[in-house]
């Protein structure tokens, strides 16, 4: 187990280093930040001056090594446009994104899994068909559109919830954004729980439990669900990717002060330190999460540990 965890962590670090190099050299190759920052009528000497101020006159490889060294002590450079340390700008955004993702995951799990169980138990019933259509719809609908429609209905027309923004942990601000992110993941949880449950319900030991005369509830929750949970758990790990995707888009819609919003501002204004830092931190969050899930999963299922 220790070996497994060790290699998984080494792999995660390697991935992050590759990611940082790709973004660093990539942005360096395709655009001159000094040119983008300079006013339109700047003379070449002035552009050269900006370049020197930003330290861009040194070779890329040296700047990259410097940059990596800075990250180790929490220094991501200074934002070109906001004239503030990037680490400060990014770190104040991280909790907001995590809160949103956690809220979305909670909604997805608490609605998706019970719906999946219900669908499997009442197979081919009207409810099952309704659930299946909902799952297909949830996977085909663009999240950004769903978010806007919910905003229009509940915030604009019915005036029940705030339109956008965030006030601390006030739950009213969370409802629409978190739900819009959750729908895709929820549909996935539902489909998976349904198929895993169907498979288990068809097994010999469930038939035996029924023959034994156990109460139906006991059969479903104790015997079937316990065994159906492993594939659902794996999906929980994969779903972080979907949640992160969703939060980037939804943050922009609701002006949610998270990482995604900052990243887009960075891309639009070509604020390279911001682009670098937001991408690295998002990648870091994602890789940490999937590594943790992998480890938890290996713990639950010994076949993976030794496979």
């Amino acid at each position, binding site marked *: 187990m220790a070996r497994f965890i060790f290699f998984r962590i080494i792999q995660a670090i390697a*991935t992050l280093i590759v*990611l940082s190099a*790709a*973004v660093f050299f*990539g*942005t360096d*190759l*395709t*655009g001159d930040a000094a040119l983008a920052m300079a006013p339109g009528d700047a003379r070449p000497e002035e552009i050269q001056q900006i370049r020197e101020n930003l330290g861009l006159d040194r070779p890329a490889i040296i700047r990259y090594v410097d940059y990596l060294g800075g990250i180790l002590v929490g220094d991501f450079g200074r934002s070109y446009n906001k004239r503030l340390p990037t680490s400060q700008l990014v770190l104040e955004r991280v909790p907001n994104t995590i809160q949103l993702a956690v809220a979305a995951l909670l909604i997805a799990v608490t609605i998706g899994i019970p719906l999946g169980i219900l669908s499997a138990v009442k197979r081919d019933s009207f409810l099952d068909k309704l659930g299946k259509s909902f799952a*297909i*719809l949830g*996977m*085909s*609908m*663009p*999240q*950004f*559109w*769903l978010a*806007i*429609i919910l*905003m*229009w209905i509940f915030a*604009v027309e019915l005036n029940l919830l705030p339109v956008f923004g965030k006030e601390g942990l006030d739950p009213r601000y969370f409802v629409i954004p978190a739900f819009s992110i959750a729908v895709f993941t929820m549909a996935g949880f539902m489909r998976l729980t349904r198929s895993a449950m169907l498979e288990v319900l068809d097994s010999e030991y469930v038939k035996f439990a029924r023959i034994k005369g156990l109460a139906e509830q006991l059969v479903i929750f104790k015997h079937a669900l316990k065994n159906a949970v492993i594939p659902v758990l794996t999906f929980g790990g*994969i779903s*972080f*990717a*979907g949640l*992160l*995707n969703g939060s*980037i*888009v939804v943050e*922009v*819609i609701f002006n949610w002060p998270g990482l995604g919003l900052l*990243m*887009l501002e*960075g*891309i*639009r204004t*070509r604020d390279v330190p911001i*682009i670098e830092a937001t*991408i690295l931190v*998002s*990648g870091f969050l*994602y890789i940490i999460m*999937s590594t943790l899930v992998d480890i938890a999963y290996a713990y639950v299922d010994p076949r993976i540990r030794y496979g």
Partner: protein
Amino acid sequence: MANQDLATPAPQAGQVTRVVQKARELRLPWIPIVVLVVLMVAAIFAPLLAPHDPGQLNKRDREVPPFETSKFLLGTDKSGKDILSRLIYGARTSVFISLVALGTGAVIGSAIGVMSGYFGGRTDVVLMRLVDAVLGFPTVLLALIIVAIAGGAGISNVIVAVAATVWARFARQARGEVLSIKERDFVTLAIVAGVSAPVIMWRHIFPNVINTVLIVISLLVGQTILLEASLSFLGVGVPPGDPAWGIMVSEGRDQIFEIWWLALFPGIAITVVVMAMNFFGDWLRDTLDPRLRRTR
């Protein structure tokens, strides 16, 4: 003569019934097929079908609500541009970007997959690690990284970004196929006959992978359309002002208080098309190659 007259139509009728029967056996997904045909027709014949120029401003007909006049069936936006026309041209943008991006991803991905599977060894291990990393990574984030590296918004950058997220699926699938194909006799014989590796891959292996590649393409069209729309929506895709579904929804978001219909229709269009594509892809996979069932 009379006999012949009687005899000739008979096999024709038989053929028709056979075709009908075959169609029934295949259980063609009619609704998705109709949706796709409508989409393709709209994309190809946009200039003929659109009632107005998608960029034309109509000062007297601003913010017309939908279903009010037959002149602007789905209404107009705040500068009087006809929404139906923009939707039709938007189909063109979506189809064009998705197909080019998917095509690029399919060619590069299956080439990498075929080589990876054929040569095996260390190259294979490294390439498949990369494939794993790309497959697991959040698609929107990955596409944003590519756009950021490529230097910002623009159609060609979106195509590169989308292709960069989809190639891995082709590589994974093609590699898996190649592993079993390369053990078959015709490949062994080609090697014994001294055929060079590139020729074996191109002439003997690749044709056997095409089926799988087609299935993966059909399974990914929906996702690709969604991704393109998301990027355009975020303002890093198709240039603003162009008729694209993602951009229309984004404009609709800014005007949600005044003209709700602007965001509504393009979203419905995306949902219907993606859903149809998903159904169609599932059907194609089940019909052509049921073994792939588990791989999704």
